[in-house]
């Protein structure tokens, strides 16, 4: 019975997804609140203001429509200062479905896309806040089973790149694919470091130079989130990663 209800919910969500794709992107409201973060900023909790988050990552089809409107962001036109060599390298591949998330986008490209949608990239705290939820709970991070499930997703090899968006069950906020599909850009990726304080001249240890520092962070049981921080902290704005896409926020 419970399973049947859940199945019905999934089917509904998938249908809504199809409708959403035709009518434009769906943003869901996130209430915000006081939040225990993996990246403490002087205090153990941060306050996240209410915001809206894109229910799904931006797809290849959506990014193709953006490129038609903004040809300056096409692979052959973009200046190297805004996008490394791997930018949209696999974008023309026919193997990957149009409903798969766009990947291989630089931070600048992701930012420009969100701006075209009247939105912006989420901040790290906004991303982390929405990603803490499982299907029923807004913060499931203390549940070892949930953490294991996320890790199991990452451990599953993806052949031929990520599949279509929206295949995972929506979380308690109604957001999908926060885990298990792609890495995602955040607007303040270049604000993610640990003990950075310029007063400690010469001793400054950032995640960029010291990956192990991630494990001394606040939410140390949450490997999936710590890996995200480690990746984001190691990137430059022009870098592209084949398994990294984005979603927007308002």
């Amino acid at each position, binding site marked *: 019975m419970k399973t049947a209800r859940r199945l019905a919910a999934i089917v509904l969500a998938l249908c809504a997804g199809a409708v959403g794709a035709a009518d434009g992107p769906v943003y869901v409201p996130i209430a915000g609140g006081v939040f225990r973060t993996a990246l403490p*900023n*002087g*205090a153990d909790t941060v306050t996240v203001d209410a915001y809206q988050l894109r229910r799904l990552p931006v797809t290849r089809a959506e990014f193709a429509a953006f490129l038609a409107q903004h040809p*300056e962001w096409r692979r*052959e*036109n973009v*200046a*190297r*200062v*805004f996008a*490394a*060599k*791997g930018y949209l390298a696999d974008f023309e591949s026919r193997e990957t479905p149009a409903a798969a998330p766009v990947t291989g986008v630089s*931070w*600048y490209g992701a*930012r420009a896309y969100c701006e075209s949608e009247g939105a*912006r990239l989420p901040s790290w705290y906004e991303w982390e806040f929405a990603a803490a939820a499982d299907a029923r709970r807004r913060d499931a991070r203390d549940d070892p089973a949930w953490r*294991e499930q996320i*890790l199991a997703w*990452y*451990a599953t090899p993806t052949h031929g790149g990520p599949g279509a968006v929206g295949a995972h069950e929506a979380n308690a906020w109604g957001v999908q694919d926060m885990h298990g599909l792609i890495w995602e850009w955040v*607007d*303040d*990726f*270049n*604000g*993610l*470091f640990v003990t*950075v*304080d*310029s*007063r400690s*001249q*010469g001793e*400054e240890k*950032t995640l*960029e130079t010291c*990956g192990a520092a*991630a494990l001394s962070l606040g939410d140390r049981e949450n*490997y999936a989130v710590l*890996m995200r921080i*480690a*990746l984001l*902290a*190691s*990137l*430059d*704005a022009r*870098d*592209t*990663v*084949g398994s990294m896409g984005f979603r927007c926020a308002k």
Partner: protein
Amino acid sequence: MKTTRWIVAALVAAMLQPLSAAVATPVAGVTATSALPEDSLQRISIPLTDQQGNRFTLADEQRPATIVTMFYGDCHSACPIAIESMKRLVDDLPANRRTGLRVVLISLNPGVDTPESLAHLAMMHGLPPEQFRFAVAGSDRDTREIAAALGVRYRRAAGGEINHSTRFVLLDDKGRVVSATDKSSVPPEPAFMASVTAQLGHVAAR
């Protein structure tokens, strides 16, 4: 056990991927929209205002050598050292070479740092606008883009402080990065000083 091994592998993979992206050699000359080099920071079109109220962008900085760094006015720890480091760097140059260089110091704190407060700061440090251009962008969004382009990392902390890396980026007349350092010291780091001198000498010899 299996999980642990996997986590290590994933961390390694996560750290390696961006490395390979970083070492990729830039390919120049793909349908540039202007005469600027592909990797020129002069393509960053964020509008800035300096301590004299002049509007400009990085494309307006076309001296043989430009050093760009970021700081904020209420910073009483690292920023005075950074400013002093740049002052010393200019002082240590031969007088006839100084006009080939300008130091651009961009605020991490738009809205709080203003042209007026920056003018006051420049005056307090005895830094002439001809050689030291203090500047501020119009928004946090624009400021983050400049920081991203320069490789400066920062975030706002409680109590109005801004945690940030101190970074100096040396650009040539076309906005290409010649060298950069994350070390802030007085006197400036010898290797960085040498690259500035070389850049000015290189131009003088041309």
